[in-house]
């Protein structure tokens, strides 16, 4: 492996890892805010317990998201300096705005929320979690605008002297349809992930007989959020797919392993064939579904999906010799894993609602295990989605403008990037073990039996702290 391959592995590993925490942060911050609002409005203690409990899980997770996020910003300059030089005039702006507008907001107000339970009046304290939750969404918007520029560059010109991309329309970068559709898809999938997490944890605790009143309410909340989010994920995914067919037809062709341009292209649920899908021996197909996903038409000339081979010929003419197809087996399966695992998450939420209907408490050991592992469905699904999106863009780092191989830092040695890859992988692995153990403990302990709150005056007069590090 050379420095380029290692730099790509490093980016893949650190980014997928970071994004395990991101959707949980986005979804759970707002769902915790909703629980706290329910307590604030109704005064019902079950919602306060739920807020405290899911807030605790959220914070263990948030810490990991924060620290792994710093690596993301530094990595562009460290390992991808030529990429940074080429797109910096455009790509740097949303990153800087993200830090200034959203990182400050989420980190400062979360600090206020964690330590402010007995320092702030209740309404103001509630506002801090909403501000933090809003900050996480805003942050997602800017980083996805930057990513969308890589998927579909817009609002720029290439400076003929420096050969660097220069921003001409920041509004276009922030509001192009790629950005809007991606944001909607990522946010709805984040709520799916968080919804399923809350359902799984609540179900487990109900079966354990702990804080059942509180957990039945959170189960319902989580399940309905997961179901509605699941529908939105489908809808936004569909919108995104149709945009993708226009902007990156090769990605859609690879997702379906369509080699030759055709009408009425089927969608294969399962295929036995060679690895890259160029030959199938046996398959279960839904006729015309791929055409429909890509174009909105089942058959006829309008249902035409361009094939990998034809696109390859077209790109060779436009960009010169080279391989313009991504690694098809990975894209084909990542696409299915994304849809399938996301769908399983929604099914689990419906199932959990069904088995707990009318105050029922399931007892089966299988269901208990399902509740433990259910979170993995949408979480692995969302990772598969990112792997699909990013690997499906290859060989480009900025679609049609710069190839990935041209973006890596020219001075980066195999040793240096190999070392950092090993360091990050080992460190992240160790932290994952510690984090999961802590989360398991937090769930085992469950929501607090009683919650005592001081009022702000007492707290400021030097009473004991309700929360300290």
């Amino acid at each position, binding site marked *: 492996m050379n420095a380029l391959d290692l730099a790509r592995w490093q980016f893949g590993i650190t980014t997928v890892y970071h994004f395990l925490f991101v959707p949980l942060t986005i979804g759970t911050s707002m769902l915790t805010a909703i629980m706290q609002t329910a307590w604030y409005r109704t005064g019902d203690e079950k919602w306060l317990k739920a807020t405290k409990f899911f807030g605790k899980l959220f914070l*263990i997770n948030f*810490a990991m998201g*924060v*620290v792994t*996020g*710093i*690596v993301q*910003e*530094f990595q*562009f*300059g*460290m390992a991808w*300096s*030529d990429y*940074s*030089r080429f*797109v*910096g*005039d455009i*790509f*740097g*702006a949303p*990153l*800087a*705005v993200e*830090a*200034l507008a959203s*990182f*400050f907001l989420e*980190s*400062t107000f979360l*600090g*206020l929320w964690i*330590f*402010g339970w007995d*320092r*702030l009046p209740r309404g103001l304290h509630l506002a801090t979690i909403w501000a933090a939750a809003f900050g996480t969404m805003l942050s997602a918007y800017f980083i996805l605008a930057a990513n969308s520029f890589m998927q579909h560059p817009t609002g720029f010109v290439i400076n003929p002297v420096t050969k660097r991309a*220069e*921003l*001409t329309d*920041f509004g276009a970068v922030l509001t192009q349809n790629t950005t809007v559709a991606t944001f909607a898809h990522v946010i709805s999938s984040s709520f799916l992930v968080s919804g399923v997490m809350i359902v799984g944890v609540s179900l487990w605790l109900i079966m354990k007989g702990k804080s059942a009143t509180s957990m039945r309410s959170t189960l319902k909340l989580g399940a309905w959020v997961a179901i509605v989010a699941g529908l939105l994920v489908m809808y936004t995914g569909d919108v995104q797919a149709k945009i993708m067919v226009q902007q990156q037809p090769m990605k859609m062709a690879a997702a379906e392993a369509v080699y030759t341009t055709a009408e009425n292209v089927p969608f294969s649920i399962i295929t036995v064939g060679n690895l890259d899908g160029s030959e199938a021996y046996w398959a279960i197909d839904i006729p015309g579904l791929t055409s429909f996903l890509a174009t909105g038409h089942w058959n006829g000339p309008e249902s035409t999906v361009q094939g990998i081979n034809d696109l390859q010929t077209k790109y060779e003419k436009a960009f010169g010799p080279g391989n313009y197809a991504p690694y098809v087996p990975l894209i084909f399966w990542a696409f299915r894993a994304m849809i399938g695992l996301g769908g399983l998450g929604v099914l689990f939420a419906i199932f959990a609602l069904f088995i707990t209907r009318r105050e029922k408490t399931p007892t089966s050991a299988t269901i208990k295990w399902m509740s433990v592992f259910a979170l993995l469905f949408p979480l692995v699904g969302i990772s598969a989605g990112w792997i699909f999106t990013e690997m499906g863009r290859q060989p480009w780092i900025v679609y049609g403008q710069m190839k990935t191989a041209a973006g890596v*830092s*020219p*001075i980066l040695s195999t040793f240096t990037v190999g*070392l950092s890859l090993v*360091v990050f992988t080992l*460190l992240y692995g160790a*932290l994952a073990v*510690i984090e999961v153990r*802590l989360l398991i*403990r*937090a769930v*085992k*302990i469950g929501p607090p039996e009683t919650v005592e709150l001081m009022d702000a005056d007492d707290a400021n007069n*030097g*009473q*004991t*702290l309700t929360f*300290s*590090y």
Partner: protein
Amino acid sequence: MTHDQLAIIWFVLIAVLWCGYFVLEGFDFGVGILLPFIGRNEAERRTVVSTLGPVWDGNEVWLLTAGGATFAAFSLWYATLFSGFYLALLLILVALIVRGVAFEFRSKRGTASAPNWRRNWDWAIFVGSFLPALLWGVAFANIVAGVPLEIQNGNSEFTGNLFTLLNPYALLGGLVTLGLFTTHGAVFLALKTEGEIRVRANKLAGQIGLVTAVLAVAFGLWTQLSHSNNKAASVVVLALVVLAWVGALAANRLGREGWAFIASAATMVFVVTFLFVCLYPNVMPSSTNADATLTVQNAANSQYTLTIMTWVAVILTPVVLVYQSWTYWVFRKRLSPSQIPDPERGSLDLPHEVSA
């Protein structure tokens, strides 16, 4: 505004962001470095960590903003600097990761149920604070003094390695930031705690502050004489550094903790200002090839981007300052070990572990 003016504005804004970072995460680092020594029991150590609890994460965002702003306004500087200082930044990243999770995780387990847990995280906090406190000084000293840069494929590229960066001048710079941040942290602790910790922090601030003063004067003079592009201006700022530091140490001695903190914070601001004044009009001078030197003008991004970013900064920075200041106001009360209920117990100890 012209492109040249915008580029200068962004050079100043990035200096401002680093000022914020040195002032805020500076004392975070200091507190982290002092933690294993100043806290003699669990209640004290938890008090020390809790002084940072609500603020450390927001403080660290100043670094992310400085990084993002450099990317947005001076992509060529960002690219050459970050790829050139790769291994040093790797060390800083690992330190910041370990330190951040350590704050969140250390009190999750109790001393009875997990005997080594807190000690290990305390060392993680110590090392995670010590390394960046040292390495930011090393990095800035190298930036100001210049590093080997050559033009390759039209870009300025770093041609040295990690050991090029560990030269005597830069290491002295590292010791200076280490000393400044540690003292600044001690001053902060004296301001934010009550009882024994406050007394010890006050004493440590005086002692470490004196050693730092000697190192800082040596480094300041070396920089002024050998590496300043604007000697008349930089000597004035250097004098301000010295004045502010003397003020901080004097106020600390008199037990005027608020004034001591203001003065040590001012020192951080003047130190960053001094380095940026010495550096201007360069952003990253080459020690081997003058043509490869990156300057405020040749590394700046387009006029359009700089204009937009200026509007964003002008509107958002005051808002950030207001709500971050408000956080410090909300948590203005001093902490004391007596306020930590059941200090030996971990918040995620299971019921049977607590009773055992």
